[in-house]
């Protein structure tokens, strides 16, 4: 999936992945996509809640080589 920015939060634990994602989303323009990678098993559900709170959207979430990858679009 095409993306405009990547955030690798591998190895980081709660609350850092969610805080870094929040900051990264603020740097995007509407319509742009962030690819976020994390090893924290809680990250996908926390990111989904963050997107619900901010009004941005989760395009796709998948597991890749033991990592959790989320594609997030700024609205």
């Amino acid at each position, binding site marked *: 999936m095409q993306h405009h920015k990547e955030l690798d939060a*591998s*190895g*980081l*634990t*709660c*609350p*850092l992945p*969610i*805080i870094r994602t*929040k*900051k990264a989303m603020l740097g995007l323009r509407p319509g742009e996509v962030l690819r976020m990678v994390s*090893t924290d*098993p*809680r990250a996908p559900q*926390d990111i989904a*809640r*963050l997107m619900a*709170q901010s009004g941005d959207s989760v395009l796709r979430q998948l597991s890749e080589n*033991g990592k959790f990858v989320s594609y997030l679009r700024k609205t």
Partner: protein
Amino acid sequence: MMDAMGPAPMVLWGGLALSLVFGAVAGKSDFCIMGAVSDAAVLGDWRRVRSWALTVTVAMFGAHLLHHAGFIDLSRSVYQRPLLPWLSLLLGGAVFGVGMTIAGGCPNKNLLRLGGGSIRSLVVLVFLGLVAYMTLKGVLAPWRAGYLDTVAMDLSALGLANQSLATALTRLTGMPGQTALLVTIGVIGFCLLAAIFKDPDFRRDPGQVAAAVVLGLLVAAGWYLTGHLGYAENPDTLEDVYFATNSRTLESLSFVAPTAYSLELLMLWTDKSLHATFGIVSVIGIVLGSFVVARAQGQFHWEGFASLQDLRNHLLGAALMGFGGVTAGGCTIGQGLSGLSTLALGSMLAVAGIVAGSVATMKWLER
């Protein structure tokens, strides 16, 4: 069998059993006080705060029921001592809160992660234990005891025998002690339960509700174990003493000082004056409980540091938690569950410090 077993083995085996269950339930339900603070501060989601509050409420009811029935004497716990070192509680709590946010979890969370295979958490716990020991008895102890702990309020000068809110109510209203106790836990319990179950999402999550109730009961069980079953006559001195606790009085779950005492016991094993305690076996039990759950769910995996910066952050966080946890008289579990269950004013100050330190760090990281 209980009669045949002496008070010390009973406290140790009982402590291991209840902490093992605590570790299993906390691991399975993802119970995490730092996570609760983070959810509320960053996501505006208060469900895990509700879970924490329900655990405290159940622990408070359980502990005070035992106290009211005469099984234990909560006023003898370290949390209710009449000297209130408010600066240590607030500052230590805030330093602990900064540390747990930088290190990505409090000591309890790191014990749970260790059970799941995190070598990173092992390093955090060893470093935390070292700094905690330095703060208890080492190079930082004179500074803590001489400059921070001396800034204290003597509640006995105000006519208060201990830090309990119920004692304060008695002093203010002249109400008999037992009545004041029932009124205090009744009013606080009702307000907390109303706030907790106001959220329909939380009400519809029986797993979280059940986990919080079990964890709260385990904190109360800790009080019963050390304060009743472990309180007996010492055959050498013929005095009634609390067996197998580091504080030499009744205790429930707490993890900063016990991590330090675990290291002390391991390093000075041949010193016959040192023994296993409720706190030490609790540290082991949490890891074992978490390990069992991680293996059963197929989630056990070895985990290390991601980078040098990751190592640096975790060591800094561990050091702050070690110093802050000892200075504040407990961690998120020691003050945030066991202490709050006694309704001690000092525990409320320490928890306020922990939350303030954690939220301030999150906001700083969000910049």
